[in-house]
């Protein structure tokens, strides 16, 4: 089952670059957007990551950090990230393959890839919003912004 609003977001530790591991708990106190996607280099995933790359300052306004996650390896992520000039981490759910995707209930066993799924996790580490997109559709960012807005206290 895909994790839903109100569920505790399981912690994880994955490679973000060839020599650095990244854990969710490091981001405690910040809102976190997890963008699971099927594969580096595929057309829809590329468009989706390129879009989020343009959105970083909007996410920042809501004290939010975005992390991309797929089953590609750290070296593949590095090449993809360089080629698209991405300024946010791509995490490698590579060994054991798809372990974190499974924890979040968004692993496609048949394809051996993550589903295209979004989670917004609040500062306390609970899922505030989740969304499963069709694999062929780039879900954009409006749902993420609405979710961030809903968990941000109004001044």
């Amino acid at each position, binding site marked *: 089952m895909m994790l839903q609003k109100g569920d505790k977001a399981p912690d994880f530790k994955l490679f973000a670059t060839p020599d650095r591991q990244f854990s969710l708990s490091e981001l405690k106190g910040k809102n976190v957007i997890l963008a699971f996607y099927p594969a580096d280099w595929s057309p829809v995933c590329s468009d989706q990551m*390129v879009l989020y*790359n*343009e959105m970083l300052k909007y996410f920042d306004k809501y004290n939010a950090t975005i992390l991309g996650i797929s089953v590609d390896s750290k070296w593949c992520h590095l090449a993809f990230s360089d080629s698209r000039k991405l300024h946010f981490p791509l995490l490698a759910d590579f060994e054991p393959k798809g372990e974190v995707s499974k924890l979040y209930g968004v692993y496609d066993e048949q394809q051996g890839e993550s589903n295209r799924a979004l989670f917004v996790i609040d500062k306390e580490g609970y899922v505030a919003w989740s*969304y499963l997109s069709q694999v062929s559709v*780039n*879900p*954009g960012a*409006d749902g993420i912004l609405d979710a961030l807005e809903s968990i941000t206290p109004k001044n």
Partner: protein
Amino acid sequence: MSNHLKPEVSSHDHVQGSAKASIEIVEYGDYQCPSCGVAFPVLKEIQEKFGQQIRFVFRNFPLSESHEFAMPAAVASEAAALQDKFWEMHDIIFENQNLLSNEGLFKMASGIGLDIEQFKEDIQNPQLEQKVESDFESGIRSGVNGTPSFFVNGTKFDGDAQDLMDMLTENSSIE
């Protein structure tokens, strides 16, 4: 995800065609995006073919991290708008997309007869970049997920410019 245009077309937008037109097409585009370059002549064809029935609106959606001249080009078009030449600038940029550079934009600005001193001053006005960014944000809120994205009468159209042409052609033959 959202598929409704937010906010609606207003006096802040760059509009071609009559407010009474029955079909309102809004494009979210990036001047350096190759697919937007491909869409440009097709949109012209749509406007020609359907004439008075079409109202066309362009909103900026520059993917600045991927396209270094997307934002400068968008700002240049807004500066041209201050001299009532938005569409001339919009067109000349898409017609010469392969020549996009800072120098190229100045050449295009002279090409359409802008007052260059004024243009130079205006492109440094931070309000123009803010206008472009507010277009971008409206796109995000409307569910734009890449460029070009089209909205027809306020609803996101799932397809490219040629699909749009085909859809309009098909609908007009039914009537």
